[in-house]
């Protein structure tokens, strides 16, 4: 099948391929330290996939590889393949900017720009060449509504995003991510810097976003993974130990190490 045909199919959303990411025998090294070992994993469309595991297990590394943000770290080497939408993300033809437009990211610490709320959300559309005020206004409102924060900020769009609370900032960051209409949203422990109430709001938001987006979320909060995700992957020292339906993983883990981890024996 040629790329063109597969693209067309996707646009018609007549998708018979259930996996948006296909990770095959993937290894990654930071310099000479291997961080990921032979990862095989398929990430399903319009599902929430959680990746759990103790600190340093490679879950963030894996997440950042999916939109190649990992390349910001010097001396990273990889082997194996990762396919997004059936195309190798590491191929020469793949423009990394295009990949990151389709695979958006929300970071651990809320990281709004030191600009107004409006300019934060309009940033993505603007870098992709949208200049018309009317179009931008529409995108900003739609994105902020999508991130369930429109009502809280609609009267102060021109104020600096730094004046918002941590939870609000994170939702503005999610809105900023939605503004370029990605297919996938990667979330790197998006609630670890937030209080319980803000966390709850973000979790509800993530569940709502599932209808339109594929979400991959890294968390070291197991309850969070159990609450919101459809599929859960458990990683340990760079290996994917177990990857299955969330319910199955938490109620009936196959691997002894998974069981030890989810019952709180380590990590």
């Amino acid at each position: 099948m040629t790329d063109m045909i597969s693209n067309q199919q996707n646009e018609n959303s007549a998708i018979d391929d259930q996996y948006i990411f296909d990770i095959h025998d993937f290894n990654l090294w930071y310099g000479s330290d291997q961080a990921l070992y032979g990862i095989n994993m398929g990430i399903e469309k319009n599902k929430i996939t959680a990746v759990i595991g103790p600190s340093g297990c490679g879950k963030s590394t894996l997440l950042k590889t999916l939109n190649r943000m990992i390349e910001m770290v010097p001396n990273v080497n990889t082997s194996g393949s990762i396919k997004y939408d059936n195309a190798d993300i590491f191929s020469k033809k793949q423009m990394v900017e295009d990949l990151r437009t389709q695979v958006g990211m929300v970071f651990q610490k809320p990281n709004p720009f030191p600009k107004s709320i409006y300019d934060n959300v309009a940033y993505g559309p603007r870098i992709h060449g949208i200049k018309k005020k009317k179009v931008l206004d529409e995108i900003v409102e739609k994105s902020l509504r999508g991130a369930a924060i429109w009502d809280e900020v609609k009267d102060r769009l021109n104020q600096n995003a730094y004046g918002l609370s941590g939870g609000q900032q994170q939702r503005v960051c999610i809105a900023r991510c939605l503004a370029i209409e990605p297919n996938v949203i990667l979330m790197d422990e998006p609630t670890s810097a937030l209080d319980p109430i803000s966390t709850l709001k973000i979790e509800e938001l993530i569940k709502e976003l599932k209808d339109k987006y594929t979400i991959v979320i890294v968390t070291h909060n197991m309850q969070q993974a159990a609450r919101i995700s459809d599929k859960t992957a458990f990683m340990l020292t760079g290996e994917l130990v177990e990857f299955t339906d969330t319910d199955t993983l938490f109620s009936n883990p196959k691997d002894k190490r998974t069981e030890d981890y989810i019952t709180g024996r380590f990590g």
Partner: protein
Amino acid sequence: MQIHISKSRMKRRIALNSIFRILFFLATTIGLVFLSLLLIRILNQGLGYLTIDFLRNFPAPYVEEAGMFAGIIGSLFLMLLTAPIAIILGVSTALYLEEYAPKNRFTNFIQVNVQNLAGVPSIVFGLLGLTFFVYLFQMGYTLIAGALTMSLLILPVIVVAAQEAIRSVPKEIKEASIGMGATKWQTIWRIVLPAAVPGILTGSILALSRAIGETAPLLIVGAATAIYTIPDSMLSKYTVMPIQIYSWTSRPQEEWQFVAGAGIIVLLVILLCMNAIAVWIRNKFQNRY
């Protein structure tokens, strides 16, 4: 087991503390005393000669008619040429080193050498300017040759200051931009530079205020000591404030020392203003994250 704390030792420690406080205070005072003496002497000698005419007149053979106009305008024009050249080159270099250059030995080598260049005596830059701009490029003893030499002189300082400013932009907001499919240049232009501008400006102004007081390199690349016109093009002859002051102090008659004092006051006031602007910019834009 209870440890025994000797009261007499404690008194000794406290006494030692006071002694060090006094020593450090004296060290601070010595610097301040000499600075005040210098200022008092200059103000004493110069204030009487500091008149409106002094600011408006060209150099003259008589003390009463001597003025600094050519130097003030010369310095101003020199800085107006130097600033854009040095800032554009310096910020570009800093951006390359910080954002684009691969982190390898060669980059390190450049990095170390830029820092070393910042410590090279200014007269060496004067010789460089004489060899390249004045002779090789046949610019002669002109304003542009002086400005280019000065640009080279302050370039390393600006590069280092700009690098620090660029480095202090939080990694998180750069990642946010890159993560949305922005190119490196878009990220630099929309995120990094706006956040780094205060630091870059502060560093640049401090570098320029070093340049405005420089004499040696300009003597070498042929700034005039006595001149009766102001520059009307980049190829004009020119003089600057410190060179005029230098030429007055080297005259034998005592009253010329007073004229030099007046010149120093003018130079100091301009320097203080530039530093004040730098401090103001730094405070105004501080703590934006």
